[in-house]
Structures are given as structure tokens and as C-alpha cells.
């Protein structure tokens, strides 16, 4: 697809600015928190962990910053792929049953194995997410419904409902499971450690590869499935690659921090208003925006709670909602 040099360089500039934004947010996230350390104290602790009093810098700021960058980036891109695949501006990575599958697997882990260790949870969440999306995909494919995104979304919603019901059943029948589940299901960057992030990173990189491989198909699908088919697009392959990207990216994010909403929904919309609908630019833009947005909301939550903090999920719901309404009001959604 030919791109005019002028728009390309403008878009490249936007990406550079977004990248700088991520850098700025990273520094801000390291510097600010509910424990009001001075810049000097943070820098000393950062460069000399033995001077890191109470492990605040290395025990809290660093992990939540790394996780914010990682999870925000993954969810932003997963959201963009999701919205491109379904051509539904309200699609969120949860639609394919990924979050519900991960939740059920985590709950089964606690219920059956009695474990809630971070690495076990990670693997269970990944497995659950993968199984759920394969089932959703299988159900939609059985009905030969791959040409339109609607059967996929319906299958996803139905399978999600089933998985949520099973989760509720297990959770309500055992209080230990309920406690473990409640802790996990609140998507949060606080109180999480970097344990297991290396494994999640592997899955995320695989997801990124699939997402990159899906870019041309996403651009074709944006023209409508008929036209995409006419352009020689293999729908089955396009859907499969997209689904793999969404599952891997979402699952690796969700496994570590628990489900975090709104990033996957909002980041692609902001991205589209900045770089347009071409997924070649939209995917990286959504990822960078997702990372900045998640860190920004987390920092806000740290600062408005006094000795406590307001969970990033609450801040996201409030701020994300406002941003979303603004976007809808400006009518950019039509760009899908």
C-alpha cells in the first residue's frame, strides 16, 4: 500500500513523541508515589539498592513501573488488533473469552491444587486464556462464521458467560478459593512483583510477532470482509493469526496483574485519532499510548489516596471513561 511521504513522516513523528511520552511517564512513575520520597532519595535508592530504605524503590516503584509499561503496551496492541478484527469500536480483549478463561483457570488452580503462587497462576492464566480462545474460535469456525466478526463475538460472549458461571460456582463453594480469586481479579499494579515476568515476556513477544504478521490482514479487513476476500485475503488465516496475537498479549498481561480494563478499549481510539486507521502505525501507537496511559493512571491513583492509594482500575474507569466520551463526541469512531 503506497503511503505519501508527508503523512508517513508526520506519523513517524507522532510515534517518536509517543515514545518520548512513555519515557517521561517512566521517570514520573519512578519518582512519584504514596510515600513522598525526594528525587535524591529515589535516585540514591535506584543506583544503590543497599541505600533503598524499606525497599520502596526496588520493591515497589521499579516493579510497578515495569509492569505498567509491559501490561499497558500489551493491552494497547491487543485492543487495536481486537477492534480491527471485529471492526467493533467497543471490542475489548475480554470479548474472546480470554479474561474469563484466565480467571477460571486461576480459580481451578486454587480449588484443585490449593496453590496461588505467582508462577503457577501465570501458567494457569495463560493456559486458561488459550483454551478459551481456541474454544471460541472453534465454535465460530464450526458455524463457518469466520467471514463476519459477529459469530466470533457472539461465541466469545457465550463462552465467557459459561466460564464466568463456572468460576462463580467454584468461588462460591469454597471460601479459600473466593479469597484467592478476589485478590487476583482486582487488576492492579500495586503489590505485584516481577516474579514470572520473564515467562510472560516470552508469550508477549510471540503475541507481538503474530500482531505484526496480522497488520496487512487487519488493513484489508477494515475494507470489509467481502473486499478483503476479493483482495486475496485468507480469512481463516487472518482470524487465526489475529486471535493468537490477542490471546498471547492479553493473557501474558492479565496473568501478572489480573484483568485491567479500559486500556484495550481506549488506547486504540486515541491512537486512531493521532495516526489514523492504518494498522502499520496504529499498533505501535496503541501500545505506546497504552503504556503511558496505564502508568499515568497508576501515578494519579498513588497520589490521591493519602497513606493509601486508589486502585489503578478505579482511576482508569473514571479517566478512561471521560477520555472515551470525549473521543466519541469528536466522532473519530467513524474512522473504523
Amino acid at each position, binding site marked *: 500500500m503506497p503511503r505519501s511521504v508527508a503523512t508517513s513522516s508526520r506519523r513517524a513523528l507522532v510515534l517518536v513523541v509517543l515514545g518520548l511520552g512513555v519515557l517521561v511517564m517512566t521517570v514520573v512513575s519512578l519518582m512519584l508515589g504514596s510515600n513522598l520520597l525526594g528525587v535524591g532519595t529515589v535516585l540514591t535508592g535506584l543506583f544503590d539498592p543497599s541505600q533503598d530504605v524499606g525497599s520502596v524503590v526496588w520493591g515497589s516503584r521499579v516493579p510497578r513501573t515495569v509492569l505498567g509499561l509491559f501490561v499497558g503496551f500489551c493491552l494497547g496492541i491487543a485492543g487495536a488488533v481486537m477492534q480491527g478484527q471485529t471492526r467493533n469500536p467497543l471490542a475489548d480483549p475480554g470479548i474472546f473469552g480470554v479474561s474469563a478463561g484466565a480467571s477460571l483457570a486461576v480459580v481451578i488452580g486454587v480449588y484443585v491444587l490449593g496453590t*496461588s503462587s505467582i508462577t503457577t497462576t501465570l501458567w494457569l492464566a495463560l493456559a486458561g486464556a488459550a483454551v478459551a480462545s481456541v474454544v471460541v474460535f472453534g465454535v465460530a469456525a464450526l458455524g463457518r462464521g469466520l467471514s463476519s466478526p459477529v459469530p466470533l463475538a457472539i461465541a466469545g460472549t457465550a463462552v465467557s458467560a459459561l466460564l464466568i458461571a463456572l468460576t462463580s460456582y467454584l468461588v462460591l463453594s469454597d471460601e479459600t478459593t473466593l479469597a484467592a480469586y478476589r485478590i487476583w481479579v482486582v487488576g*492492579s499494579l*500495586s503489590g505485584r512483583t516481577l516474579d514470572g515476568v520473564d515467562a510472560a515476556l516470552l508469550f508477549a513477544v510471540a503475541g507481538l510477532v503474530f500482531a505484526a504478521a496480522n497488520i496487512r490482514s487487519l488493513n484489508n479487513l477494515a475494507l470489509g470482509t467481502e473486499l478483503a476476500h476479493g483482495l486475496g485475503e485468507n480469512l481463516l488465516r487472518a482470524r487465526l493469526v489475529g486471535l493468537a496475537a490477542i490471546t498471547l498479549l492479553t493473557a501474558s498481561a492479565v496473568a501478572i496483574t489480573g484483568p485491567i480494563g479500559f486500556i484495550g478499549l481506549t488506547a486504540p481510539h486515541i491512537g486512531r485519532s493521532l495516526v489514523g486507521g492504518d494498522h502499520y502505525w496504529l499498533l505501535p501507537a496503541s501500545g505506546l499510548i497504552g503504556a503511558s496511559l496505564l502508568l499515568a493512571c497508576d501515578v494519579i491513583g498513588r497520589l490521591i489516596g493519602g497513606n*493509601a492509594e486508589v*486502585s489503578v482500575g478505579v482511576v482508569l*474507569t473514571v479517566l478512561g471513561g471521560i477520555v472515551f466520551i470525549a473521543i466519541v463526541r469528536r466522532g473519530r469512531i467513524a474512522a473504523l
Partner: protein
Amino acid sequence: MKNLAVVRRTALVLAPLIALMGLAGCSSTADAGTSDGGADSAGAWSYTDDAGTTVTLDHEPERVASYSDYAIGLMSYGIDPVAVFGRADVATDARFADYDLSDTAIVGNSYGEIDLEALAETAPDLIVTGIYPTDREGTLDTEGAYYGVADVEQQAQLEKIAPVVAIEVGGAGSDVIDSMNRLASSLGVSDDTIAAAKTDFDAAAADLTAAAGESGLEVTQLYADADGVYVVKPADEPETELYRSLGVDFTDLNPDGYYYWDIYSWENAAQMMTGDVLLINVQGYGEADLLAQPTFASHPALQAGQAYAWDGAALDYASQAAHMKELADILRESKKL
């Protein structure tokens, strides 16, 4: 379910605000508990509950349905409820381990989910629930739903089945126990039975006082999750209030301010590390999770292995006697740090 969690968090943040509003809007604390209730010579029965509601029946209630927390107290006095509804699965609730539930219908295993048809089938004469104050001053929101009930609509449904009374769970722990006893007494439990339970309770209380005095330990009661550490304010929780009145030294860094507990983010956890013993609420992070928190792992009590899974017990003589024994044992096996 995510939303539920978010609502819970939001509620937590808003709670002080709502409490303030409640304080401004409602200064009349119900003057309940003056009448002992019970049946008169004609057999008619009357009881005024802690929310100020007077229930009058033409006979003493024989078939009582109850929320699990209060069912335990009733059962300790030999009143077997015809129906029980709980916050979690009642059949596996350890608090009922010593009691026989085979003749009791379990009509709810999740907070606010009550099988109204099954409840109605047991034909209760009276339904027992609770009410928690919304602030430190003991303001009761008598317009809202009682504890154990989902909302006012569900409460209206319950009231169609049988009159609903509430035990106030707030303020002094001994007041809550007294309220439980007052209800039991009105339901026909003899003074001797209550006095016998009190003897055991008093013995356990004296032993707890002795253990607290010998050990001189500071006890921190907390709940923890991803957001941080929630330290219970001993004056605001009836159980800790009771134990403190018996001599247990609870961490109380900020008695004013927010009601019920102070929240310390993980970054600020160091501010609350004064305790020698940690009582960790079973519904949140456990000992292993706390050890995995880099900003909390250094807590001296955690390092010394003086961290215990802990849950509030029902506020009746029997449950509290057992619970105080547990705490006394913990105090005796722990050392000053």
C-alpha cells in the same frame, strides 16, 4: 465481577464521606435495647431490636431463621434455627463444626443471595439479621438494608415471610454479646443457661488478661491485599474493643480519622510495623504473600514467625470464649521483639 471489585474499592474510598453525610443527616441514634422483650402472661411476645424496631407476635417465636453470624450464638444456647443464610458456604463453615445443622435448612451461601422460597417453606416466626453502624459514633442507617440482606427490596420480601430483627454489631464487644443474650433470653433461653455460658466466657477472659499481662506484646490485626495493608482500629471493631478492654495491647497508630481501619499502601507499610504479633485476616494475603512483598517482608513479627491467620468470631459467649483461648495461646507462644 471486575466491576464488583471496583465498586468495593470505590465504596472503601467513599465510606468516610458517606459516614460524614450520615453524621450530618442523622443525629438520632435509636434508643433501643431498653426492653428485655419476651412473652407476657397471655403468651403474646414482644421484642425491641437494636435498630429500634418493636416486633409483637401472639406467641413466643419457636421457628427462628437467622443469618449465620447470629445463628451460631443462638445454637450455643440450644436454639436450632429452622433456616440459616450466610456470607459463604454454610455447610463447610468451620464455625458450625460443633453444631448439628441436619435439621436446619440452608437457604443462602453467598452474601445477599437468599432463597426466599426455601426460606418461606421453613415457615419462620422470626428472622434474625444484623446492623453495623456507619461511623464511630454508632449511627445506624435504619433506612438501608440490614447486614446479611442484599438490599431494601429483599428485606421487604423477608418481612413478608416473618418479622425481621437486627443485632447491632458495633461499639463495645460486650454490648454486642449482651444484645445476643437479650435476644436469646426473649426466645426462652433460661438465665441459668446464659449464666453458665458467662462462667466459661469469664474464665477465658481472665486467662486472656493474664496472657496479655505476662507477654506485654503489641498485636496488629490486619487485612492485606494488592492495595496494601489495612490496619484495624481496635476501638472500632467490637471484638478488638473487647480484647483491648481485657488488656490486649493492639496497634493503634491513628485512633481518629477514618472509621474502622487505616490503609497503608505497600510503599507506606513501614509506618505500621510496630507490632510483635500479626493477626492476618484470612480473606486477604496470607503469610507467604506478605513475605513476598518486598516492602513488608522485613516486618519483625513476620521474620520471627509470629504471624497468624485470623478471622473474627461470632459475638456470643461460647464463640468468644473459644476465640479468646486461641488468642491467649498465641500470646503465650510469641515473644517480645
